[in-house]
């Protein structure tokens, strides 16, 4: 898309991590708006209003800690931002969900590549296959 302006939302962790990006955006000839966000501000109407009043051509960057990323991305999507109009960066420690293909329950993991399902004990290989609906990676069972 032909970007017309940038909107950057970041939390405390995003502030240092976004240094290079902010320099890069500042060097472009397009307007850049930067707003801080916190877990608390997620539920304030100012943030919702900010996202909902954006015009076509706005490109959104989210640079926030992982727990904030998904609710913020969801809010941006509700406002009308599509995948082509935003870039999401999760920062800091990350827990991810792995869906067990044997018992179909959800496991919370960090960055392991092989886990034992907390529910059925099946050994799961964590794939790159991500479900947007479940917000989880698929855990493959090995065929014996």
């Amino acid at each position, binding site marked *: *898309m*032909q970007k017309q302006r940038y909107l950057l939302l970041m939390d405390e962790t995003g502030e240092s991590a976004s240094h290079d990006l902010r320099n890069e955006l500042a060097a472009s000839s397009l307007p850049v708006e930067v707003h801080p966000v916190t877990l608390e501000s997620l539920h304030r109407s100012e943030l919702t209003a900010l996202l909902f*009043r954006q015009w*076509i051509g*706005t*490109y959104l960057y989210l640079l926030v800690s992982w727990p904030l990323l998904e609710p913020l991305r969801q809010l941006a999507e509700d406002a009308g*931002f*599509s995948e082509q109009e935003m870039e999401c960066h999760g920062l800091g420690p990350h827990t991810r969900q792995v869906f067990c293909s044997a018992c179909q329950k959800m496991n919370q993991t960090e960055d392991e590549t092989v886990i034992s399902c907390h529910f059925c004990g099946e050994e799961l290989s964590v794939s790159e296959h991500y479900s947007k609906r479940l917000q989880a990676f698929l855990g493959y069972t090995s065929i014996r």
Partner: protein
Amino acid sequence: MQPKIHVFVKQIIQETPSVKRFVLVSKEGADLPAFSAGSHVTTFLNTAAGTLERHYSLVQAPAITDHYEIAVQLHAQSQGGSAYWHHQVSEGTELFISYPKNHFSLSFRAKHHVFYAAGIGITPFLSMMAELVAQGRSFELHYAAKSREMCAFYETLQKTYRDSCHLYLSADPDSSRMRPDGMRQQRIGTHVYFCGPETMVNQFQEAARSYGYPQQSIHFELFAPPAPMLREPFLVELWQSKRTISVGSDQSLLAALLAAGIKSPYSCRVGRCGTCAVEVLSGEVAHYDSVLSEKERAAQDVMMTCVSRAVHNKLVLSL
């Protein structure tokens, strides 16, 4: 062969001096298949020159299925389709139509829909607006016509969509022109839709891209295939059929294949739906479709036979 529906013309309404609306009812008396907003049907017209296939948008609300309505503009340079509808069809005429097809559907994700229609390009938007009203979703229509008299569906639009409808009358010196820059100040999540002549659709598409609309938020429908830049005759060698066919300068590759008895698939015939895609084994293709991405075009291994042609004198297809 695609399945067809046997219908008859129940009523003809003169919308403007050059546009007639036809009410089609099933010959069997049953309800017609349900359709989604933006759908069209192919009509099969038995003319002296053979069967003509012409596509027309369904103009009624998608909730209505006891009949279909289409609107046909008589073209000065009609190649038979619109002239047939206007001069040969009367109330009671029987014909066959296809099941409804949709190459121009509404986005489920859009937060606001903006329609731009020129002339008879209004037709697909009629079912779309009816659907959006039923769903309580937001939209606006921009519609350019020559004059009040030549503006098809003027009364319906004024009565039903007065607050969402902006009319631009080119013969009226007091009326403003329909311009693309209204798309600039739209909220995030807006999708734009264009229907009209190729030049208008291209102009609005290009403007929408330059204002920052992502490609997925830009939708359009053309009445006719885009005019190819290259119109030279060429040869196609068909690898599976072990035949070589020549394509004339005034003929599409698809038309040449069908004329030679090759069962090549197709649907829209305007390079929009992708049904006619065939594998290209060698030769350079001049792509005129709006289905393939830049990357797919560059790969030169697939082409839409309804609009695309050879750059040089020969192509080898897997058909």
